[in-house]
């Protein structure tokens, strides 16, 4: 089982090494990793066993820390940050490239907030990197509000849980971004729209269902290549498209195809390592999408662990066309 404690130096040391640490926030315990380290972020998805990749909320200790991984805060959003942070407000900001794709699900924006919990704030303020931290529960389990819950659910997969007592039971954070130059509420949560409007005036609301708010991952359309994306057995697909004389690129799990120019293929993990494949997935799709080809051919990965989430993303790309 994991060790429970209040030693933020120990938590810092583990996070610096790329390990996961459970941290308390005002709503639930989060499963935290260095948000700038793609290997550490891949571990989050591995441990949570989620069958899909969703953007993760990045936690910081101060507004100043945000400039390290975003290209800036639009003025109305800065006003909201100053008014409501720390607290149940998440802002969607334009990302810099040092934020791994796994944090943003390949989107060009990143979700950021300052949590309102003294222990976690203290931790964030001694770290020189932000923390990606979805709720510390495996897929299908209820969100943990006590350190003991985390230990029960994930104690055999992480080393340390920062014990910040019982989280106040609250709503998820309200998510706000900019759309077409307008402040837009993307998910309703603990911060009321009327409070937001007191600071920035009238806002737009763009949510799919107020009674069932979507997760941060589903704020916007998922990332998908613009080119047609076809899934299947690569050998067969390559033969078929060769015969049709259609230009194609190949996204393969581990195999290199000697008869195809190297520039037209992207191998997710030559050693068949699902964590490496997850880390490379968005980059691979993006690189191939920029090529002068008519179609991207791809194959599914083993349907287990991170493979399930990778396949979900590949299927979404294929279903888009």
């Amino acid at each position, binding site marked *: 089982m994991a060790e429970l404690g209040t030693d933020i130096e120990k938590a810092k040391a583990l996070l610096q090494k790329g390990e996961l640490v459970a941290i308390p926030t005002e709503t639930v315990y989060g499963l935290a990793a260095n948000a700038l380290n793609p290997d550490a972020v891949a571990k989050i998805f591995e441990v949570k066993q989620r*069958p*899909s990749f969703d953007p993760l909320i990045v936690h910081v200790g101060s507004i100043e820390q945000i400039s390290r991984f975003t290209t800036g805060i639009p003025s109305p959003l800065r006003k909201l940050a100053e008014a409501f942070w720390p607290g149940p407000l998440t802002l969607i900001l334009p990302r810099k490239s040092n934020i791994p794709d796994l944090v943003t699900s390949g989107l060009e924006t990143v979700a950021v907030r300052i949590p309102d919990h003294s222990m976690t704030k203290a931790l964030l303020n001694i770290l020189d990197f932000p923390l990606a931290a979805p709720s510390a529960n495996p*897929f299908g389990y209820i969100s943990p509000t006590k350190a003991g819950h985390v230990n029960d659910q994930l104690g055999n997969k992480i080393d340390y849980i920062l014990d910040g007592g019982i989280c106040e039971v609250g709503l998820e954070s309200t998510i706000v971004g900019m759309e077409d130059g307008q402040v837009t509420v993307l998910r309703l949560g603990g911060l009321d729209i009327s409070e937001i409007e007191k600071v920035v005036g009238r806002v737009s609301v763009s949510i*799919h269902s107020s009674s*069932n708010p*979507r*997760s941060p*991952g*589903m704020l916007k*359309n*998922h990332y998908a290549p613009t080119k047609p994306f076809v*899934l*299947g*057995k*690569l050998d067969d697909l390559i033969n078929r498209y060769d015969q049709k004389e259609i230009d194609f690129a190949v996204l393969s799990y581990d195999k290199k195809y000697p008869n195809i120019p190297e520039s037209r293929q992207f191998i997710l993990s030559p050693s068949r390592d699902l964590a490496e494949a997850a880390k490379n997935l968005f980059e691979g799709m993006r690189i191939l999408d920029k090529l002068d080809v008519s179609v991207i051919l791809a*194959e*599914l990965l*083993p*349907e287990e662990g991170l493979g399930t989430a990778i*396949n*979900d993303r*590949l*299927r*979404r790309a*294929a*279903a888009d*066309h």
Partner: protein
Amino acid sequence: MIWLCAIVLVSCAPTEQELFDEGIKMMESEQPEKSIEFFDRVIEKNEENTAAYNAKGVALFQQKKYDEAIEAFTSSIKLDSASYKPFFNRGNAYLEKKAFKEAIVDYNYANALDPNQTDIYYNRGLALLGLEKYEDAVFDFDMALQQNRDQPLVHFNKAKAQLGNNNPLAAMESLINTVNLDNRNAYAYYLLGVTQMSALSQKEEGCANLKMALSLGYAESKTWIDDFCGE
């Protein structure tokens, strides 16, 4: 007086078979710990009782003590390697430990000893699936289905192997067989829906199956429905 002692002696010293039967009863009433005590007493009486080792292994397996179970099955095999059961059981313990290669070796022995046991094909299929040997896994699932087609889990795992083999069309057929036999398998509806949409652009059918998966509690379907099944 002599008769009384004889009766007491008999009642105080149950036979090997009585102890074994009592152990089986305990196991059937889901008291594996108690059953192990009985099997140990059988083994104390007769160190060569292969059935007792095998039964003890099953009780340990029920308690998820897979390493100890493997030890017990191995003892059983050493005494009598003519029965498929301890090989099959040890294979199952290896399968639980995700020691797929070891599991397959044992299933191969079990299969050679009794080729008519369909469970051996199914479980070996699962081990092959774990090793990403998809074509071989499909073959074993087909062997299991030859004996009885009405096995939704076999169709379901066959579909997984076919998906692993990047054969979505065949997988869809297996998934349809799965949900036809078990209309509560939410994950099968989900996989069927996403495969229909991603492999064949069958949005209408895919959305219907995703909605079915959602209604059965597979929450992950919702994001797909939101993204692809808008009115």
